[in-house]
């Protein structure tokens, strides 16, 4: 058999590193050229294996593991430092929110202050001077002014209950009845205000103050008495 027929078998035997068997072994024993080619192939694969070992088992730089450990430390530290940053952000946000809410409430309170300072409390006796008859327009306008800030239920219950109002003289009993109906839910404050807002505003009637004229009496003449007093003193 010609040598070309053994070429593939020769290469495969060299690649596997196994000893040639059967016909190939016989041929290699008889053919010096093929024997030399087989030896060359084995040398080639040995060189490849040796080269691969060199490539695959390269010395590891001594700096690798320390570098990795340093990076791990840095990573752990940054993870730890992230927690305080997150907590600080959350605390800051909560603080800002609290300040905003408190300031908003204070502004609301200060907006009411001029009204409430000018008004008497609902529990006050009905004999309020007639100057205070501007109260009904105030009770109408306050909930409407704050309608956009507070829900209707809060306006109807909490604000009315604690809102000092001025009443025309003699209308306290009627106001008590209205307030009682409001508390029992028989009527809604907003409806009432809406109805009232359609009604024409009555002119305020302020009774004039009854001030009695002041009597001015002339002072007694005390100038004549003083010399006599002085004369007695001299005596």
């Amino acid at each position: 058999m010609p040598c070309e027929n053994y070429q593939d078998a020769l290469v495969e035997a060299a690649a596997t590193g196994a000893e040639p068997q059967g016909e190939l072994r016989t041929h290699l024993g008889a053919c010096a050229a093929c024997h030399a080619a087989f030896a060359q192939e084995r040398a080639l694969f040995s060189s490849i294996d040796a080269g691969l070992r060199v490539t695959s088992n390269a010395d590891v730089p001594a700096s690798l593991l320390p570098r990795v450990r340093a990076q791990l430390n840095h990573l752990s530290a940054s993870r730890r430092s992230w927690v305080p940053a997150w907590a600080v952000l959350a605390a800051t946000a909560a603080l800002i929110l609290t300040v905003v809410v408190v300031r908003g409430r204070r502004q609301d309170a200060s907006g009411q202050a001029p009204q409430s300072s000018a008004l008497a409390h609902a529990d006050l006796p009905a004999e309020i001077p007639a100057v205070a008859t501007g109260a009904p327009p105030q009770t109408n306008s306050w909930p409407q002014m704050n309608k956009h800030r507070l829900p209707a239920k809060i306006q109807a219950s909490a604000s009315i209950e604690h809102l000092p109002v001025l009443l025309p003289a003699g209308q306290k009993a009627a106001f008590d009845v209205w307030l009682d109906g409001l508390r029992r839910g028989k009527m809604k404050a907003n409806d009432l205000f809406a109805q009232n807002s359609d009604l024409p505003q009555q002119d305020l009637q302020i009774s004039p103050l009854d001030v009695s004229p002041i009597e001015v009496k002339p002072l007694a003449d005390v100038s004549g008495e003083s010399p006599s007093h002085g004369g007695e003193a001299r005596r």
Partner: protein
Amino acid sequence: MQELVLVQPGRTVGDELVHEAAQADTRREFEERLAECGPLAYRVARGVLRNTADAEDVAQEALLRAYRRFDRLRDRKRFRAWLVRIAFRLALDRLRSGKRREHRDTLWSQPEHQPRAASAEDLAASNEFQAHLENALAELPEKLRLVLLLAAMEGHTIDEIAAMIGVSAGTVKSRIFYARKQLAEKLRCHVKITKTR
């Protein structure tokens, strides 16, 4: 210096301590594997990149990536295989981006292609066959290359490689055989050239 521990809102001190302890355990467990598997990551990267500095960078990146995802690895026995895959992937990415960069640099800096003149020192220091081998290795398909590199590394049996890359031992043997044969075909002419010199 006293260490300050800030407790997160919504978490109790107990939870915080448990979390810290778990992190410390993870770190300790990873450190134990680091000394054993760090060189493996480097060698895989070195086999692909053929450059010490790049291989070190890639190995470091692979190890850090493995640490960050260490909690996700359910079977810790598969850490070596997992790390090998990470390092191999990263090295291939680096190789591709390096080739693109090299191509770009060549286009900008050398309008006319001129072969680099080798100095006398280069010629003396180079191992011609080794250079040809590494070039031939770089041209192998990825699957064959990884198996061949792992097989050439000290201490890896066929079964270990099979477990590492998740294929049968027969597949590993087959890949090694074809990989070596392809390398031989590429290098045969260089062996003759070397001999004739």
